[in-house]
């Protein structure tokens, strides 16, 4: 039978002992894994950046030459970080990590690679929670939809082109998903506009 006659001093002491042990153990695991977690994060990031940028466009490590921004550039788009890619110590452009809240279910995180010479190298998806089977076609593994944002010259795209075809723009739609492609296209277009205005501060 459980006895419920609690002894507050004893209980309190045991509880604090338990808490102290738990804190020590988790702190230890945290410290042991710290190095490895950093390396893994950097490696994943480098892999994504290498996939986005043409190999001859840079000779630095953009994952390290980065600027923390956390800037809200409109009420649904946040620029988190800029990874600068450089050749012979001159900045050629930036890969911008942005979060848009216009997704169908939650935020969509993108990496957008832009050159200073008005090129979009490409766009990669970092995280999303769009509907499986419909909105998730923006994932590279599921369809080629994102590939149409590769190697585009921004000058050839007037503001009206930044929409899916059925809305008068020039990008393919995804059947069954209206909001997801719109969110991505708007995010890329807004990021390009913001970048062209702020290119001087991202050197």
């Amino acid at each position, binding site marked *: 039978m*459980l*006895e*419920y006659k*609690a*002894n507050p001093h*004893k*209980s309190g002491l*045991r*509880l604090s002992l*338990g*808490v102290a042990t*738990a804190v020590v*153990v*988790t702190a230890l*695991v*945290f410290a042991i*894994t710290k190095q*490895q*977690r950093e390396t*893994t*994060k950097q490696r*994943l990031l480098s892999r994504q950046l290498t996939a986005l940028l043409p190999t001859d466009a840079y000779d630095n490590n953009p994952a390290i030459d980065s600027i923390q921004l956390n800037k809200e550039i409109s009420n649904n788009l946040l620029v988190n970080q800029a990874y600068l890619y450089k050749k012979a110590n001159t900045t050629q452009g930036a890969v911008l990590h942005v979060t848009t809240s216009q997704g169908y279910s939650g935020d969509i995180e993108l990496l957008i690679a832009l050159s200073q010479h008005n090129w979009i190298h490409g766009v990669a998806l970092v*995280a999303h929670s769009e*509907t*499986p*089977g*419909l909105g998730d076609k923006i*994932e*590279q*593994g*599921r369809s080629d939809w994102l590939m149409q944002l590769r190697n585009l010259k921004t000058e050839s795209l007037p503001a009206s082109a930044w929409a899916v075809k059925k809305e008068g723009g020039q990008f393919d739609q995804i059947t069954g998903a209206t909001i997801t492609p719109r969110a991505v296209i708007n995010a890329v277009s807004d990021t390009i506009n913001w970048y062209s205005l702020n290119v001087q501060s991202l050197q």
Partner: protein
Amino acid sequence: MTPSTATHNKLLLAGLWSDNPALVKLLGLCPLLAVSNTAINALGLGIATLITLVISNTMVSVFRHHLLPAIRIPLYVLIIASVVTCIELITQAWLPQLHRSLGIFLPLIVTNCLIMGRAEAFASRQSVKAAIVDAIAMGLGFLLVLLLLGITRELIGMGSVFADASQSGIKVFDAEYGILIALLPPGAFFILAALLIAKRKLDK
């Protein structure tokens, strides 16, 4: 057969079939339904839950004489939360893909009532050995149902099994012919219901 192996066999049978946490007790339905959309996710979460359950049951059983009744619940929470935090840190370091696809459901193992339930109902009053066997049995029972749900949903929804972002897995038919609803939340309920019916029919 010694009495102890007999008890162990009984515990295993209970966890895997007669008292299965997912099919009989219906515990931990939130991760069961949410993360079973692909076989890989289901397997990942199943293994993480199994490991958490084994460690937490062992610890609760080892310290069962020190877990005073008045503070036992906060201490269970403390043990389970620390174990899950450590597992999360370790997957983040060495299994980043899994960490990303499980997302919020990895830390949410803390709130899986299956783990708390086994700590309170079993590990806190049994020997360490029995507690470990119970944890393995219950964890495997949960893992297998989760995996079965994951395989079925992925197969019906996308025509593949064990596919993820980097590899295509076993392709059965083209994703275009998949029945989308199996991947969406309602599909999880339908298929779980089918499994529950199947289990009851088999028991008769």
